[in-house]
């Protein structure tokens, strides 16, 4: 610095250690503790716009509502369209509109959780904002993280978005009924997933006709209810 600096005062070096990405992870861990204290299982469902996240949530709601006391948290930029789609199955749903924010975060989810009587719940399904990039960096404290992709997103969707898949526990390849007409090789998508995440569990579904949903429920919901503590890879 110049001579003026010395004339005006002393300079000091202060050592600090403040991490700005770690903060989200800590909020997520606090959410997980809150859920675990009340025996509530939470699943974070992510994916691009139009892959069938809400259709999957509807399938799960229809088949699980008699077994579990459940709630759906619908994240979206605007409208309550998704919430209304869930409500018509007789399942409680909370809409969170994020404006232009492209992902939910642990703080937003915390606000919703604190407004609920968690003693009255067994299962929370979070439908994240439609986006294949940003939500991966913002763990919510869920017990499992799932991405829904579909046969309509082209053949390179996995390799072009490796980061989100590397963080996931489950990937659902939806709209398999459309694969022939779209010219998509579902098994190649599954192979690509194993390249970016050798441990990810892959499911093939059609939420329109219900194909593959029961198998997904057993692995994603029932097994998680039985042993919720398996570490997710979030924030690794």
């Amino acid at each position, binding site marked *: *610095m110049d001579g003026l*600096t010395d004339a*005006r*005062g*002393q*300079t*000091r*070096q*202060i*050592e*600090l*250690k*403040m*991490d*700005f*990405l*770690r903060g989200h992870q800590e909020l997520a861990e606090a959410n997980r503790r809150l859920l675990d204290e009340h025996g509530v299982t939470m699943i974070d469902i992510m994916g691009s716009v139009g892959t069938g996240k809400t259709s999957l949530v509807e399938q799960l709601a229809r088949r699980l509502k008699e077994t579990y006391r459940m709630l759906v948290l619908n994240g979206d930029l605007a409208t309550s369209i998704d919430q209304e789609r869930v409500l018509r199955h007789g399942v409680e749903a909370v809409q969170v509109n994020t404006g232009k924010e492209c992902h939910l975060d642990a703080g937003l989810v915390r606000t919703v959780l604190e407004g609920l009587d968690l003693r009255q719940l067994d299962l929370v399904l979070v439908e994240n904002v439609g986006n294949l990039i*940003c939500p991966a*960096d913002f763990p919510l404290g869920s017990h499992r993280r799932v991405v829904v992709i579909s046969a309509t997103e082209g053949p*390179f969707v996995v*390799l*072009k978005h*490796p*980061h989100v898949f*590397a963080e996931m526990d489950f990937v659902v390849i939806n709209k398999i009924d459309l694969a022939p007409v779209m010219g998509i090789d579902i098994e190649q998508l599954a192979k*690509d997933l194993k*390249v*970016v*995440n*050798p*441990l990810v569990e892959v499911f093939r579904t059609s939420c329109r006709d219900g194909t593959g949903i029961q198998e997904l429920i057993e692995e994603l919901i029932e097994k998680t209810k039985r042993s919720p503590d398996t570490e997710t*890879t979030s924030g*690794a």
Partner: protein
Amino acid sequence: MHEFGITSRIVQAAAKAAEENGASKVLRVDLLIGQLTFLSIPQVKLAYDILVKGTPLEGSELAVEESEGLARCANCGHETPVQMRLTEDSNSLPGPLPLFSCPECGSKVDVVKGKECQITGIAIETL
């Protein structure tokens, strides 16, 4: 990544730390950014210059140190630098892409280094 939002929090935290230490001016903020955060350092610096205008941080230097990624295999414990490219036997699409599986045993690796986004220190001037 969300460079502007993250930089905004960095500026706020640095300003708070400076105030708590009786700074009249901040000369430098030291930042450690891991390559696996995929934060763009030029974008962070641009956001910093915009955000510090009119604050005690105006005119300060943002000194960024980068850390390279390191992964440890959850299965065999093998440590490997996280390579920013695809393996030869997988699809060869262009662009940086880290390797997510262990080169020794093929299992999933945990990232143990390279995801930092830390203020490691500040240099201040006191009256």
